[in-house]
């Protein structure tokens, strides 16, 4: 009986975004009186296992023997841990890995699953968004086993809580052989990760030409911001796919979100409307983005953005 929390690793370290799953597990533990465990999967796990021990989990399960991620092999690892720990809940953050993996685990253990929850009401009811964030649904999972993915922006990244969990290393040899990992082409960027950044500068169709993206790049540089994009910009191939903010892209909730040349379609707004302060710069005063922006500037972005960059640069250096 317990809660199993899945943390993703990158280069042998726990991904910061994964820590939202621990916050969700703690909420759930508080409401059910259950304990939570952590599972990590990969190679060279020693360092990550040590780090995972500091988040107040009862046991950290570290599963070795899998090279590269596939939902099929990770599912086998998780099933093995669930059999050993007797977990009734499985929690992952709704990243591209979490979304790919969690339903597969749910089907395997006969669990009902709630996708990308934003709140834990009790041990079986949860809140989640539907219709591109236009509706909040309260859902109840009726099965004994339950699987949850967590919307990262709705749960804080957990802090270490002191203490030390037990670590259990498990070795597995995945049996599934109908899928082969070939390669990953990583988007090269020196900027903070979109979902973790304090400031996000996003660019829309109004930028007109990929050459012009350097204008918003410079603004993002001054602010130490991540760069995001509307679907139109990504569809046009002007920025890579993982820059897309929206219903089907990434969900962000930074301290400051600056939308440049973005009209504000509901699909885009779904991915950024929980940002603390939203700034919109658009030459069309009727653009829907102004209906949700805290601060709107109706202006030609090709004049306003370079001016903003220059003035912020001076402000920053003056301090």
């Amino acid at each position: 009986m317990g809660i199993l929390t899945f943390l993703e690793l990158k280069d042998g370290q726990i991904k910061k975004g994964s820590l939202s799953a621990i916050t969700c597990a703690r909420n759930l533990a508080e409401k059910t009186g259950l304990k939570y465990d952590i599972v990590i999967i990969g190679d060279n796990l020693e360092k990550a296992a040590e780090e995972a021990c500091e988040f107040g989990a009862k046991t950290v399960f570290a599963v070795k023997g899998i090279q590269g991620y596939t939902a099929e092999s990770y599912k086998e690892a998780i099933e093995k841990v669930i059999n050993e720990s007797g977990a009734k809940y499985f929690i992952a953050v709704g990243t591209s890995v979490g979304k790919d993996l969690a339903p597969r685990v749910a089907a395997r253990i006969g669990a009902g699953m709630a996708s990308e929850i934003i709140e834990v009401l009790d041990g079986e009811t949860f809140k989640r968004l539907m219709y591109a964030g236009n509706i909040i649904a309260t859902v109840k999972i009726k099965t004994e086993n339950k699987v949850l993915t967590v919307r990262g922006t709705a749960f804080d990244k957990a802090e270490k809580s002191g203490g030390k969990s037990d670590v259990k290393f498990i070795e597995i040899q995945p049996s599934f052989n109908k899928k082969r990992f070939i390669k990953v082409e990583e988007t090269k960027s020196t900027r903070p990760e979109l979902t973790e950044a304090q400031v996000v500068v996003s660019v829309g169709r109004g930028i007109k030409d990929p050459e012009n993206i350097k204008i918003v790049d410079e603004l993002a540089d001054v602010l130490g911001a991540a760069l995001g994009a509307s679907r139109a910009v990504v569809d046009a191939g002007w920025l890579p796919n993982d820059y897309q903010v929206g219903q089907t892209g990434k969900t962000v909730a930074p301290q400051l979100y600056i939308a440049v040349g973005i009209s504000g379609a509901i699909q885009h707004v779904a991915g950024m409307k929980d940002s603390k302060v939203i700034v919109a710069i658009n030459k069309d005063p009727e653009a829907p983005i102004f209906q949700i922006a805290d601060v709107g500037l109706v202006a030609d972005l090709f004049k306003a953005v370079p001016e903003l960059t220059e003035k912020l640069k001076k402000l920053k250096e003056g301090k």
Partner: protein
Amino acid sequence: MKILVPVKRTHDPYSKIKLKSDGSGVDMTNIKFVINPFDEIAVEEALRKKEKHGGEVVVLSIGTPEWVDQIRVALAMGADRGILVDTGGKYLDQDAIARIIVKVIEEEKPDLVIMGKQAIDDDSNQVGQLLSEYLNWPQATFASKLDIQDNKAIVVREIDGGLETVEVELPAIITADLRLNQPRYASLPGIMKAKQKPLKTIKIDELGVDLNPKIVIEKLETPPERKAGIKVKDVDELISKLKELKALPF
């Protein structure tokens, strides 16, 4: 090659969604219905694969008889035949839908299933993955490129941080992401031909699937609306407003 494409009927993505005044459901008056946009991309991809490798494209919908409208659209785009599993309007969760599709797959024995990665109403993003597990087939979700070679599919997937390439043996489940293709419009001759194409209806009870939901919706509500703030006249005023809101990182 036989390709099965499950499609869902959803609201037009550009329509304004609001709750009924008593909160019992989403107000669907004056809403236009379409094929779920991700499923439409899946239909297009199936047609392109058929055009290249030959075979048959079968479209499956699980809903009420009105859903035939969306099956007809897929047939007009070029799919060969349609199947409607008539639910009689019963509430079905994602898991029940997946298990119904399993039944149809056992009957139809497709080489490949292509479907949208998520429906734009539920936004759950589950059915393709559930289906893969129930069948013990490989899955390639969030596909932005699909190539069939011999008995394998090479799939480029959209992931956080870039693009991933995997190879899966057929039969497999592929779920479509936005950039897989740009769906065609149904041509007028296509629409005429679609009327003659075979369309079979199966009553849901005939499938012998346990339809008890694992997850139910207890309540729907509207999120607090974000109010429009102020408009500033120039960059200087914008900066002083940002300072006032303590929104700047320096």
